[in-house]
């Protein structure tokens, strides 16, 4: 009898390893860059929360606008107060789906180039976006990297004429999740 219990639990354990888990991170990084001849602007947010259900492919990112750190204090203040209005719109959230997420296996080291599509909400505006993402599996951990660009105008972010030449019309955004951790196994 004990043998069967042992066998059964072993089978369950094996099943757990191969099942698609739900993974998460609290320390993902999202940075952005704006380059013009007059000025380079860069900021980074190291506290990005992301949950990815590998079985269904649903993925979510959320971050706090006030969590973006700039080198120059004045830029950070203007970003929060004038452009992103972070008191009014404290978060940016992306909810989407990773295409072919089921094929990603944490059990073997491999690289995957996949597509993610979904809705990005910030500054009170929601837009559909598509972006390619690179997933690297190393020693049972998934690293995700993606880059895309956004147009501030699309999100109703107004840039005054006086500084318009200093801010690029397109802002390059870089997402990097060094390591997703397993939250729960389905």
């Amino acid at each position: 009898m004990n043998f069967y219990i042992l066998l059964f639990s072993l089978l369950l354990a094996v099943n757990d390893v191969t099942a698609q888990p739900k993974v998460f991170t609290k320390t993902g990084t999202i940075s952005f860059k704006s380059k013009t001849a007059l000025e380079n602007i860069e900021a980074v947010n190291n506290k990005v929360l992301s949950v990815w259900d590998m079985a269904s492919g649903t993925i979510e990112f959320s971050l706090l606008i006030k969590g973006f750190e700039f080198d120059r204090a004045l830029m950070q203040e203007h970003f929060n107060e004038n452009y992103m209005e972070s008191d009014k719109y404290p978060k940016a959230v992306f909810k989407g789906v990773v295409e072919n997420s089921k094929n990603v296996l944490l059990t073997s080291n491999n690289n995957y180039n996949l597509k993610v599509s979904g809705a990005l909400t910030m500054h009170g505006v929601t837009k559909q976006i598509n972006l390619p993402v690179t997933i690297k599996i190393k020693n049972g951990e998934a690293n995700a990297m993606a880059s895309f660009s956004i147009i501030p105008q699309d999100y109703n972010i107004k840039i005054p004429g006086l500084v318009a030449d200093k801010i690029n019309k397109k802002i390059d955004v870089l997402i990097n999740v060094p390591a997703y951790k397993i939250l729960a196994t389905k």
Partner: protein
Amino acid sequence: MQAVSTPINHNMISIKKLIVAAVIIIVAIAGLYFYKEYNRKVADLSNAKVEETINAADLVTAFENDEAGATKKFAGKTVLVMGNVAEIINQQDTMLNIFLGDKSAISKVSCLMDMRKKEGFKNIVSGTQISIKGICTGFLADVEMNRCVIVNDNKF
């Protein structure tokens, strides 16, 4: 007539000179101010005035009960938080996160430490009570704090 107008002319010239000098000084001061302001770095919080003081557990409860209200009260402010070190996540010595609160709680206070002050973080171990000062940025899965420094004199 000539004798009367000469001193007036002299006065006019000196007033003009004075105005020009004043304008130059004002422009120079303004220029220096804007230059300094433009290049101002994000402040290190070691000497920053504490705006709110609270226990880690109470801060988490405040956000769990009324996120919008707590965001209004704490976000963007310099907050002094005291609590138990539940977890330390060190990413290759470039990023250090100290989680304050109950180890079993789902939400904690996540403090991203200011690496300019990393000398002060060396002796921090899990399970001890410490006070951390940082800028509260809001609530995700945890209450988020940035640019955190350790406050040693536990004035609470």
